[in-house]
Protein backbone atom coordinates (compact mmCIF):
# COMPACT_ATOMS: atom_id res chain seq x y z
CA UNK A 1 0.00 0.00 0.00
CA UNK A 2 1.46 3.28 -0.99
CA UNK A 3 0.12 6.67 -0.04
CA UNK A 4 1.20 9.78 -1.84
CA UNK A 5 1.33 12.72 0.52
CA UNK A 6 0.09 15.90 -1.03
CA UNK A 7 0.38 18.87 1.30
CA UNK A 8 0.08 21.32 -1.56
CA UNK A 9 -3.66 20.75 -1.61
CA UNK A 10 -3.79 22.48 1.77
CA UNK A 11 -1.88 25.56 0.70
CA UNK A 12 -4.89 27.59 -0.43
CA UNK A 13 -6.40 27.07 3.02
CA UNK A 14 -3.71 28.81 5.03
CA UNK A 15 -5.89 31.87 5.82
CA UNK A 16 -8.44 29.51 7.33
CA UNK A 17 -5.79 27.77 9.40
CA UNK A 18 -4.64 31.17 10.57
CA UNK A 19 -8.17 32.15 11.58
CA UNK A 20 -8.52 28.84 13.44
CA UNK A 21 -5.24 29.40 15.29
CA UNK A 22 -6.30 32.90 16.18
CA UNK A 23 -9.61 31.74 17.63
CA UNK A 24 -7.93 28.90 19.52
CA UNK A 25 -5.54 31.42 21.04
CA UNK A 26 -8.37 33.77 21.92
CA UNK A 27 -10.47 31.00 23.48
CA UNK A 28 -7.47 29.81 25.48
CA UNK A 29 -6.38 33.24 26.63
CA UNK A 30 -9.82 34.34 27.80
CA UNK A 31 -10.50 30.98 29.47
CA UNK A 32 -7.09 31.06 31.12
CA UNK A 33 -7.64 34.46 32.70
CA UNK A 34 -11.26 33.92 33.75
CA UNK A 35 -10.67 30.29 34.74
CA UNK A 36 -7.76 31.32 36.89
CA UNK A 37 -9.79 33.97 38.69
CA UNK A 38 -12.70 31.56 39.19
CA UNK A 39 -10.41 28.76 40.35
CA UNK A 40 -8.52 30.99 42.77
CA UNK A 41 -11.71 32.36 44.32
CA UNK A 42 -13.00 28.80 44.69
CA UNK A 43 -9.71 27.74 46.26
CA UNK A 44 -10.00 30.53 48.83
CA UNK A 45 -13.60 29.51 49.46
CA UNK A 46 -12.66 25.90 49.90
CA UNK A 47 -9.70 26.64 52.15
CA UNK A 48 -11.21 29.40 54.27
CA UNK A 49 -14.93 29.77 53.53
CA UNK A 50 -17.95 28.93 55.64
CA UNK A 51 -19.19 25.35 55.72
CA UNK A 52 -21.72 26.06 52.96
CA UNK A 53 -19.19 27.64 50.67
CA UNK A 54 -16.83 24.70 51.21
CA UNK A 55 -19.58 22.26 50.28
CA UNK A 56 -20.68 24.20 47.23
CA UNK A 57 -17.13 24.43 45.92
CA UNK A 58 -16.52 20.75 46.63
CA UNK A 59 -19.64 19.75 44.67
CA UNK A 60 -18.65 21.98 41.75
CA UNK A 61 -15.09 20.67 41.66
CA UNK A 62 -16.06 17.01 41.86
CA UNK A 63 -18.87 17.38 39.31
CA UNK A 64 -16.47 18.89 36.78
CA UNK A 65 -13.50 16.64 37.45
CA UNK A 66 -15.58 13.49 37.11
CA UNK A 67 -17.43 14.20 33.87
CA UNK A 68 -16.09 14.50 30.31
CA UNK A 69 -15.40 17.95 28.97
CA UNK A 70 -17.38 17.14 25.82
CA UNK A 71 -20.49 16.45 27.89
CA UNK A 72 -19.98 19.67 29.83
CA UNK A 73 -19.69 21.59 26.58
CA UNK A 74 -22.94 20.07 25.29
CA UNK A 75 -24.78 20.73 28.54
CA UNK A 76 -23.78 24.37 28.48
CA UNK A 77 -24.38 24.93 24.79
CA UNK A 78 -27.73 23.18 24.55
CA UNK A 79 -28.70 24.10 28.09
CA UNK A 80 -28.39 27.80 27.42
CA UNK A 81 -30.34 27.41 24.19
CA UNK A 82 -33.08 25.52 26.03
CA UNK A 83 -33.38 28.36 28.51
CA UNK A 84 -34.28 30.52 25.53
CA UNK A 85 -31.08 32.56 25.47
CA UNK A 86 -29.16 32.93 22.30
CA UNK A 87 -25.46 32.48 22.78
CA UNK A 88 -22.90 32.06 20.04
CA UNK A 89 -20.93 28.81 19.85
CA UNK A 90 -17.74 30.71 20.70
CA UNK A 91 -19.20 32.24 23.85
CA UNK A 92 -20.63 28.89 24.93
CA UNK A 93 -17.18 27.38 24.35
CA UNK A 94 -15.55 30.01 26.56
CA UNK A 95 -18.11 29.50 29.33
CA UNK A 96 -17.61 25.74 29.24
CA UNK A 97 -13.81 26.01 29.24
CA UNK A 98 -13.81 28.52 32.10
CA UNK A 99 -16.06 26.34 34.22
CA UNK A 100 -13.94 23.30 33.40
CA UNK A 101 -10.51 24.77 34.05
CA UNK A 102 -11.77 26.67 37.09
CA UNK A 103 -12.39 23.38 38.88
CA UNK A 104 -8.92 22.03 38.15
CA UNK A 105 -7.30 25.35 39.04
CA UNK A 106 -9.19 25.36 42.33
CA UNK A 107 -7.58 22.10 43.39
CA UNK A 108 -4.10 23.17 42.32
CA UNK A 109 -4.25 26.58 43.99
CA UNK A 110 -5.81 25.10 47.13
CA UNK A 111 -2.77 22.86 47.48
CA UNK A 112 -0.64 26.01 47.23
CA UNK A 113 -2.70 27.87 49.82
CA UNK A 114 -2.48 24.96 52.23
CA UNK A 115 1.30 24.93 51.85
CA UNK A 116 1.49 28.45 53.29
CA UNK A 117 2.23 28.05 56.97
CA UNK A 118 -0.34 29.27 59.51
CA UNK A 119 2.38 31.31 61.20
CA UNK A 120 2.66 33.49 58.07
CA UNK A 121 -1.02 34.36 58.33
CA UNK A 122 -0.65 35.00 62.05
CA UNK A 123 2.31 37.32 61.43
CA UNK A 124 0.30 39.27 58.87
CA UNK A 125 -2.65 39.55 61.23
CA UNK A 126 -0.38 40.77 64.02
CA UNK A 127 0.91 43.52 61.72
CA UNK A 128 -2.67 44.71 61.34
CA UNK A 129 -3.36 43.42 57.84
CA UNK A 130 -7.00 42.65 57.07
CA UNK A 131 -8.02 39.20 55.83
CA UNK A 132 -8.21 40.38 52.25
CA UNK A 133 -4.82 42.09 52.50
CA UNK A 134 -3.34 38.98 54.08
CA UNK A 135 -4.61 36.81 51.24
CA UNK A 136 -3.45 39.21 48.60
CA UNK A 137 0.04 39.96 49.95
CA UNK A 138 1.01 36.99 52.08
CA UNK A 139 -0.92 33.90 51.01
CA UNK A 140 -1.66 33.97 47.29
CA UNK A 141 1.71 35.04 45.90
CA UNK A 142 3.76 32.29 47.57
CA UNK A 143 0.92 29.80 47.08
CA UNK A 144 0.72 30.35 43.34
CA UNK A 145 4.49 30.55 43.03
CA UNK A 146 4.75 27.08 44.52
CA UNK A 147 2.15 25.47 42.25
CA UNK A 148 3.01 27.44 39.13
CA UNK A 149 4.47 24.47 37.19
CA UNK A 150 1.22 22.55 37.73
CA UNK A 151 -0.78 25.61 36.71
CA UNK A 152 1.28 25.90 33.52
CA UNK A 153 0.58 22.28 32.54
CA UNK A 154 -3.10 22.76 33.25
CA UNK A 155 -3.34 25.75 30.92
CA UNK A 156 -1.44 24.06 28.11
CA UNK A 157 -3.92 21.23 28.53
CA UNK A 158 -6.75 23.77 28.38
CA UNK A 159 -5.48 25.08 25.06
CA UNK A 160 -5.38 21.53 23.66
CA UNK A 161 -8.77 20.69 25.15
CA UNK A 162 -10.32 23.69 23.43
CA UNK A 163 -10.31 21.48 20.30
CA UNK A 164 -13.31 19.73 21.80
CA UNK A 165 -15.40 22.83 21.29
CA UNK A 166 -15.23 22.11 17.56
CA UNK A 167 -18.14 19.79 18.36
CA UNK A 168 -20.44 22.77 18.87
CA UNK A 169 -18.86 24.35 15.80
CA UNK A 170 -16.81 26.99 17.56
CA UNK A 171 -14.55 27.93 14.66
CA UNK A 172 -11.26 27.10 16.30
CA UNK A 173 -8.35 25.19 14.79
CA UNK A 174 -9.83 21.69 14.94
CA UNK A 175 -13.16 22.81 13.51
CA UNK A 176 -11.29 24.50 10.68
CA UNK A 177 -9.31 21.31 10.09
CA UNK A 178 -12.50 19.25 9.99
CA UNK A 179 -13.89 21.45 7.27
CA UNK A 180 -10.69 21.55 5.25
CA UNK A 181 -10.33 17.80 5.24
CA UNK A 182 -13.89 17.35 4.04
CA UNK A 183 -13.25 19.86 1.26
CA UNK A 184 -9.93 18.42 0.14
CA UNK A 185 -10.36 14.73 1.10
CA UNK A 186 -6.80 15.04 2.43
CA UNK A 187 -7.61 14.00 6.00
CA UNK A 188 -4.17 12.58 6.83
CA UNK A 189 -2.29 15.66 5.68
CA UNK A 190 -4.79 18.02 7.25
CA UNK A 191 -4.50 16.46 10.69
CA UNK A 192 -0.72 16.16 10.48
CA UNK A 193 -0.54 19.87 9.79
CA UNK A 194 -3.07 20.55 12.54
CA UNK A 195 -1.04 18.44 14.97
CA UNK A 196 2.13 20.35 14.18
CA UNK A 197 0.27 23.63 14.62
CA UNK A 198 -0.97 22.50 18.05
CA UNK A 199 2.58 21.55 18.96
CA UNK A 200 3.76 25.04 18.08
CA UNK A 201 0.83 26.59 19.95
CA UNK A 202 1.76 24.58 23.06
CA UNK A 203 5.27 25.91 22.80
CA UNK A 204 3.96 29.46 22.50
CA UNK A 205 1.66 29.03 25.51
CA UNK A 206 4.47 27.54 27.60
CA UNK A 207 6.83 30.38 26.72
CA UNK A 208 4.17 32.99 27.49
CA UNK A 209 3.42 31.43 30.88
CA UNK A 210 7.11 31.13 31.64
CA UNK A 211 7.70 34.81 30.82
CA UNK A 212 4.67 35.75 32.90
CA UNK A 213 6.11 33.73 35.77
CA UNK A 214 9.44 35.54 35.45
CA UNK A 215 7.63 38.85 35.53
CA UNK A 216 5.60 38.24 38.68
CA UNK A 217 7.81 35.94 40.74
CA UNK A 218 10.60 38.45 41.19
CA UNK A 219 12.39 36.54 43.92
CA UNK A 220 12.76 33.44 41.74
CA UNK A 221 14.15 35.55 38.95
CA UNK A 222 16.62 37.33 41.21
CA UNK A 223 17.77 34.24 43.06
CA UNK A 224 17.82 32.16 39.89
CA UNK A 225 15.40 29.51 41.14
CA UNK A 226 13.60 27.59 38.43
CA UNK A 227 10.06 28.67 37.63
Amino acid sequence: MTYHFDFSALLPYWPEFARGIWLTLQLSAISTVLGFVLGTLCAIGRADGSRWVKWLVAIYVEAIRNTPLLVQVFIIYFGIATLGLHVSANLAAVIALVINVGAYTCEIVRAGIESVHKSQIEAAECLGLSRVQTYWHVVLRPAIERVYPAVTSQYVLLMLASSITSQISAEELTAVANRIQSDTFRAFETYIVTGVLYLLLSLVVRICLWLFGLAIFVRRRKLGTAI
Partner: protein
Amino acid sequence: MSAVVSLSNVHKQFGSLKVLDGVSFEVGRGEVAAIIGQSGSGKSTVLRCINALETIQQGTIDVCGHALHDASLNRRALHLDVGIVFQSYNLFPHLTVEQNIMLAPVSVKSIPKKQARELAREVLTRVGMEAKAENYPEQLSGGQQQRVAIARSLAMSPKLMLFDEVTSALDPQLTGEVLRVMEDLARGGMTMILVTHEMAFARKVASKVIYMHQGKVWETGSGDMLDQPKTAELRNFVGGVSHDRAEASV
Protein backbone atom coordinates in the same frame (compact mmCIF):
# COMPACT_ATOMS: atom_id res chain seq x y z
CA MET B 1 3.27 54.16 86.46
CA SER B 2 0.15 53.21 84.50
CA ALA B 3 -0.34 49.62 83.51
CA VAL B 4 -0.01 48.90 79.79
CA VAL B 5 -0.89 45.27 80.28
CA SER B 6 -2.95 43.86 83.07
CA LEU B 7 -4.09 40.26 83.45
CA SER B 8 -6.49 39.27 86.15
CA ASN B 9 -7.34 35.69 87.07
CA VAL B 10 -6.90 34.40 83.49
CA HIS B 11 -7.94 30.81 82.83
CA LYS B 12 -7.32 28.96 79.59
CA GLN B 13 -7.89 25.36 78.61
CA PHE B 14 -7.05 23.39 75.49
CA GLY B 15 -9.74 20.71 75.67
CA SER B 16 -9.32 19.14 79.08
CA LEU B 17 -5.77 20.41 79.45
CA LYS B 18 -5.55 23.38 81.80
CA VAL B 19 -2.85 25.68 80.44
CA LEU B 20 -3.43 28.86 82.42
CA ASP B 21 -4.79 28.54 85.91
CA GLY B 22 -5.62 31.97 87.31
CA VAL B 23 -2.80 34.09 85.95
CA SER B 24 -2.59 37.71 87.13
CA PHE B 25 0.13 40.30 86.60
CA GLU B 26 0.66 43.84 85.43
CA VAL B 27 3.27 45.44 83.25
CA GLY B 28 3.71 49.20 83.41
CA ARG B 29 4.79 51.67 80.74
CA GLY B 30 8.47 51.37 79.93
CA GLU B 31 8.81 48.17 81.89
CA VAL B 32 10.56 45.09 80.57
CA ALA B 33 8.94 41.91 81.84
CA ALA B 34 10.57 38.54 81.33
CA ILE B 35 8.38 35.47 81.61
CA ILE B 36 10.40 32.36 82.40
CA GLY B 37 9.51 28.79 83.13
CA GLN B 38 9.75 25.24 81.91
CA SER B 39 8.25 24.08 78.61
CA GLY B 40 4.55 23.56 79.17
CA SER B 41 4.34 26.07 82.00
CA GLY B 42 2.02 28.24 79.91
CA LYS B 43 4.41 31.12 79.29
CA SER B 44 4.07 31.25 75.50
CA THR B 45 0.31 30.87 75.84
CA VAL B 46 0.17 33.93 78.10
CA LEU B 47 2.04 35.93 75.49
CA ARG B 48 -0.29 34.76 72.72
CA CYS B 49 -3.30 35.66 74.88
CA ILE B 50 -1.95 39.19 75.31
CA ASN B 51 -2.06 39.57 71.53
CA ALA B 52 -5.50 37.91 71.21
CA LEU B 53 -4.01 35.00 69.26
CA GLU B 54 -5.64 32.74 71.85
CA THR B 55 -9.01 33.19 73.53
CA ILE B 56 -9.45 32.80 77.25
CA GLN B 57 -12.25 31.11 79.16
CA GLN B 58 -12.22 33.22 82.29
CA GLY B 59 -10.66 36.38 83.67
CA THR B 60 -9.80 39.72 82.11
CA ILE B 61 -6.92 40.99 79.99
CA ASP B 62 -6.46 44.69 79.30
CA VAL B 63 -3.78 45.69 76.81
CA CYS B 64 -3.14 49.34 75.86
CA GLY B 65 -6.75 50.17 76.67
CA HIS B 66 -8.25 47.25 74.76
CA ALA B 67 -10.38 44.79 76.72
CA LEU B 68 -9.40 41.45 75.19
CA HIS B 69 -12.02 39.47 77.10
CA ASP B 70 -14.74 41.65 75.54
CA ALA B 71 -16.58 40.16 72.56
CA SER B 72 -16.56 43.54 70.81
CA LEU B 73 -12.74 43.67 70.77
CA ASN B 74 -11.32 45.37 67.69
CA ARG B 75 -8.47 42.97 66.93
CA ARG B 76 -7.03 45.17 64.24
CA ALA B 77 -6.77 48.17 66.54
CA LEU B 78 -5.13 45.97 69.15
CA HIS B 79 -2.60 44.71 66.62
CA LEU B 80 -1.71 48.27 65.69
CA ASP B 81 -0.74 48.92 69.32
CA VAL B 82 1.06 45.64 69.96
CA GLY B 83 4.00 44.24 68.02
CA ILE B 84 5.07 40.62 68.29
CA VAL B 85 8.23 38.81 67.26
CA PHE B 86 8.11 35.05 66.89
CA GLN B 87 10.61 32.29 67.49
CA SER B 88 10.45 31.29 63.82
CA TYR B 89 10.80 34.92 62.55
CA ASN B 90 7.84 34.50 60.16
CA LEU B 91 9.23 36.88 57.57
CA PHE B 92 7.43 36.76 54.23
CA PRO B 93 9.77 34.70 52.02
CA HIS B 94 8.71 36.18 48.68
CA LEU B 95 9.40 39.77 49.75
CA THR B 96 12.74 41.51 50.21
CA VAL B 97 13.77 42.72 53.65
CA GLU B 98 12.63 46.21 52.76
CA GLN B 99 9.31 45.02 51.31
CA ASN B 100 8.70 42.93 54.43
CA ILE B 101 8.98 46.08 56.50
CA MET B 102 7.06 48.35 54.12
CA LEU B 103 4.07 46.04 53.68
CA ALA B 104 2.16 46.93 56.84
CA PRO B 105 2.90 50.68 56.90
CA VAL B 106 1.79 50.96 53.27
CA SER B 107 -1.26 48.72 53.32
CA VAL B 108 -2.48 49.25 56.87
CA LYS B 109 -1.50 52.84 57.61
CA SER B 110 -1.60 54.03 53.96
CA ILE B 111 1.81 55.66 54.27
CA PRO B 112 3.12 56.67 50.80
CA LYS B 113 5.72 54.25 49.44
CA LYS B 114 8.55 56.74 49.42
CA GLN B 115 8.00 57.63 53.05
CA ALA B 116 7.61 53.96 53.95
CA ARG B 117 10.95 53.22 52.31
CA GLU B 118 12.61 55.87 54.46
CA LEU B 119 10.91 54.40 57.51
CA ALA B 120 12.23 50.97 56.53
CA ARG B 121 15.79 52.29 56.25
CA GLU B 122 15.41 53.94 59.62
CA VAL B 123 14.25 50.85 61.50
CA LEU B 124 16.77 48.67 59.66
CA THR B 125 19.52 50.99 60.81
CA ARG B 126 18.28 50.63 64.37
CA VAL B 127 18.80 46.87 64.18
CA GLY B 128 22.00 47.15 62.14
CA MET B 129 20.54 45.60 58.99
CA GLU B 130 20.44 48.54 56.59
CA ALA B 131 22.93 46.86 54.25
CA LYS B 132 20.57 43.93 53.63
CA ALA B 133 17.49 45.89 52.57
CA GLU B 134 17.43 44.38 49.08
CA ASN B 135 18.04 40.80 50.19
CA TYR B 136 15.47 38.07 50.56
CA PRO B 137 14.97 36.35 53.93
CA GLU B 138 16.45 33.07 52.71
CA GLN B 139 19.74 34.87 52.04
CA LEU B 140 20.06 35.87 55.70
CA SER B 141 21.22 34.05 58.82
CA GLY B 142 18.72 33.28 61.57
CA GLY B 143 19.96 36.16 63.71
CA GLN B 144 19.71 38.58 60.80
CA GLN B 145 16.20 37.37 60.00
CA GLN B 146 15.17 37.88 63.60
CA ARG B 147 16.57 41.41 63.61
CA VAL B 148 14.57 42.14 60.45
CA ALA B 149 11.47 40.73 62.16
CA ILE B 150 12.06 43.12 65.06
CA ALA B 151 12.49 46.00 62.60
CA ARG B 152 9.28 45.01 60.83
CA SER B 153 7.44 45.24 64.11
CA LEU B 154 9.11 48.53 65.04
CA ALA B 155 8.03 50.13 61.77
CA MET B 156 4.44 50.09 63.03
CA SER B 157 5.52 52.04 66.13
CA PRO B 158 3.84 49.74 68.63
CA LYS B 159 3.22 50.79 72.23
CA LEU B 160 4.09 47.34 73.46
CA MET B 161 6.33 44.63 72.03
CA LEU B 162 6.08 40.93 72.68
CA PHE B 163 8.96 38.54 72.11
CA ASP B 164 8.14 34.86 71.99
CA GLU B 165 11.36 32.88 72.58
CA VAL B 166 12.99 34.90 69.85
CA THR B 167 16.47 33.46 70.37
CA SER B 168 15.57 29.81 70.95
CA ALA B 169 16.42 28.80 67.39
CA LEU B 170 19.76 30.63 67.31
CA ASP B 171 23.30 29.72 68.24
CA PRO B 172 25.02 31.72 71.02
CA GLN B 173 26.68 34.21 68.69
CA LEU B 174 23.48 35.01 66.79
CA THR B 175 21.58 35.08 70.08
CA GLY B 176 23.98 37.77 71.24
CA GLU B 177 23.30 40.05 68.28
CA VAL B 178 19.52 39.76 68.71
CA LEU B 179 19.70 40.36 72.46
CA ARG B 180 21.79 43.48 71.90
CA VAL B 181 19.02 44.89 69.71
CA MET B 182 16.44 44.08 72.36
CA GLU B 183 18.57 45.67 75.04
CA ASP B 184 18.77 48.85 72.96
CA LEU B 185 14.99 48.87 72.66
CA ALA B 186 14.60 48.43 76.40
CA ARG B 187 16.98 51.29 77.03
CA GLY B 188 14.97 53.41 74.60
CA GLY B 189 11.95 53.04 76.86
CA MET B 190 9.95 50.44 74.91
CA THR B 191 7.48 48.44 76.98
CA MET B 192 8.39 44.81 76.40
CA ILE B 193 7.25 41.40 77.49
CA LEU B 194 9.51 38.55 76.58
CA VAL B 195 9.28 34.84 77.00
CA THR B 196 12.83 33.66 77.24
CA HIS B 197 15.27 31.01 78.33
CA GLU B 198 18.11 33.54 78.51
CA MET B 199 18.45 33.88 82.29
CA ALA B 200 21.43 36.22 82.11
CA PHE B 201 19.51 38.54 79.82
CA ALA B 202 16.43 38.46 82.04
CA ARG B 203 18.55 39.23 85.07
CA LYS B 204 20.29 42.12 83.36
CA VAL B 205 17.53 43.79 81.34
CA ALA B 206 14.19 42.88 82.87
CA SER B 207 12.66 45.14 85.47
CA LYS B 208 10.22 42.38 86.32
CA VAL B 209 10.68 38.64 86.17
CA ILE B 210 7.65 36.39 86.15
CA TYR B 211 8.28 32.73 86.86
CA MET B 212 5.49 30.48 85.66
CA HIS B 213 4.91 26.94 86.78
CA GLN B 214 1.98 24.66 86.00
CA GLY B 215 -0.07 27.46 84.47
CA LYS B 216 0.32 29.77 87.47
CA VAL B 217 2.48 32.76 88.25
CA TRP B 218 4.65 31.00 90.80
CA GLU B 219 6.97 33.78 91.74
CA THR B 220 7.48 37.33 90.59
CA GLY B 221 10.00 40.04 91.37
CA SER B 222 12.97 41.93 90.02
CA GLY B 223 15.93 40.32 88.26
CA ASP B 224 17.55 39.64 91.61
CA MET B 225 14.87 37.10 92.42
CA LEU B 226 16.76 34.64 90.24
CA ASP B 227 19.66 34.77 92.68
CA GLN B 228 17.46 34.29 95.75
CA PRO B 229 14.56 32.07 94.73
CA LYS B 230 11.87 31.81 97.37
CA THR B 231 10.25 28.64 96.08
CA ALA B 232 11.83 25.26 95.58
CA GLU B 233 10.46 25.13 92.02
CA LEU B 234 12.26 28.30 90.94
CA ARG B 235 15.42 27.16 92.72
CA ASN B 236 15.26 23.91 90.78
CA PHE B 237 14.52 25.72 87.54
CA VAL B 238 17.31 28.25 87.87
CA GLY B 239 19.69 25.55 89.09
CA GLY B 240 18.69 23.29 86.19
CA VAL B 241 19.27 26.00 83.64
CA SER B 242 22.68 27.01 84.95
CA HIS B 243 23.57 23.34 85.29
CA ASP B 244 22.67 22.80 81.62
CA ARG B 245 24.76 25.78 80.67
CA ALA B 246 27.72 24.52 82.65
CA GLU B 247 27.44 21.15 80.95
CA ALA B 248 27.08 22.73 77.54
CA SER B 249 30.20 24.83 77.98
CA VAL B 250 32.36 21.84 78.91
